[in-house]
């Protein structure tokens, strides 16, 4: 199948997602369930990587910043901006493309192969609305929140590492944090987070929903969905930076 028919099918799936729910309460329940599955269940990994990426970026910035002319508090400023602009939204979303994406593709693929999707269709349920839409919405609700958490933890990790290794004193670090702060950067990061969470959830839903064959293909579909969403995330990252900055 060529890339254009595949893309057409992807758009059709998105379009068919919008139909009237048979029973609002059940759809709400499914949405909440997905928020837990996607958001809460990836909290742990997000906490760990955010903390360390902040810490590491503080140490490495200090290592590169050898000029005695620059005040040490600049480290805080650089850590803050790299974490907010790039690390928290992009790095976290790349990791989530693996964690959340393979999970979504695997779940839907399994439902397709074991005919659970057919069983829902036979009951008279639009499975794109019932299965795909809540996943995309849940991802767009929870992933930007995770990104915000990641920003805070990343900066905190940077501060902790700097103070612990004696590179910058806590008071100096805090002073640096407040220098030249642009709220627009946070807005930009959130724009990225929303775009990436849509990419992750819709691409992995697409690959999972249209699995054909057996369990071997489920694995293949989740790998494929991770690769495609990662590439698209990097591409979108470039486009958004070119347009919004």
């Amino acid at each position, binding site marked *: 199948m060529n890339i254009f028919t595949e893309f057409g099918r992807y758009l059709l799936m998105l379009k068919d997602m919008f139909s009237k729910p*048979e029973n609002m309460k059940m759809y709400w329940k499914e949405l909440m369930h997905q928020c837990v599955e996607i958001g809460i269940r990836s909290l742990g990994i997000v906490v760990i990587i955010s903390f360390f990426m902040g810490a590491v970026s503080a140490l490495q910035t200090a290592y590169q910043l050898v000029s005695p002319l620059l005040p040490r508090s600049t480290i805080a400023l650089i850590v803050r901006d790299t974490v907010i602009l790039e690390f928290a939204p992009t790095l976290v979303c790349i990791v989530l493309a693996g964690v959340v994406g393979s999970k979504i593709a695997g779940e839907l693929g399994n439902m397709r192969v074991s005919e659970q999707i057919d069983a829902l269709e036979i009951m008279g349920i639009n499975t794109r609305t019932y299965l795909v839409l809540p996943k995309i919405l849940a991802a767009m609700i929870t992933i930007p929140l995770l990104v915000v958490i990641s920003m805070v933890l990343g900066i905190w990790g940077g501060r902790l590492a700097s103070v612990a290794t004696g590179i910058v004193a806590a008071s100096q670090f805090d002073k640096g944090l407040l220098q030249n702060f642009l709220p627009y950067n946070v807005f930009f990061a959130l724009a990225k987070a929303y775009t990436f969470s849509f990419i992750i959830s819709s691409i992995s839903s697409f690959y999972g929903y249209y699995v054909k064959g057996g369990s071997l293909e489920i694995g293949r579909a989740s790998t494929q969905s991770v690769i495609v969403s990662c590439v698209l995330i990097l591409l979108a990252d470039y486009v958004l930076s070119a347009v919004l900055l």
Partner: protein
Amino acid sequence: MIEIKDLKKTFGDKTVIDGVSAVMQTGKCNLIIGSSGSGKTVFMKCLVGLFEPDSGEILYSGKNFTTMNEEERKELRQQIGMLFQGSALFDSMTVEQNIMFPLDMFTKVSFQEKLKRVNEVLARVNLENVNDKFPAEISGGMKKRVGIARAIVLNPKYLFCDEPNSGLDPQTSLLIDKLIKEITLEYKITTVVNTHDMNSVMETGDHIIYMHQGIKEWEGTNKEIIFSKNQKLNEFIFASEFLQDAKDMRMLEMKGKIDNNRNMDELLK
């Protein structure tokens, strides 16, 4: 009543259903029999719209299913119950939640009433104390029965069962056959069953369609089937030498008994 007119379905260049016409009658168990790979499952999935047929028409009580749009199909499907060959239970839900799911989605009654209905259908398929088990924790035959329970929980007008008693012991198998027959008569529904189990053919076959390589070879009732002169059908029914011998030896006797007895076991006594 479901009318099927000249249904065709191909996969690539392989013709799986080759121009089948039939009428599935209301209040009867319409059986589709045939050997493995003859196209029974594909035929059933065409009837409910999980596969789009290449040509032909399907009419549900006179309404053309093939030309219906998504919304109309959804409406019709709320009157359809289906058991899949592989059961297709939702594996993230317990048995109770599986069966309650259609009730949750399409009714507004209280939880107590739903639970009552769930236990009612579970009792009908002879299952007890499995409410809180997950599909992975029950046997294949039990999954089949949960699948049937889920299919009948909303009292469908059309019931489709793909091999309801494969993988069941003879006793449970008989129970399921009886159950399907009972609800078909009780609620005057249109039931379509795929099977290759001769016991259930004799037990429930009010109307039998024999499929061979995508073609309807023979059509009739369980009273007529063992006297059919159709070569391929005979090969299918009397595949076991035991049955063939029994048939030859008792042919005359059986002719006298056939009207009173429906059960193969009894015939061969």
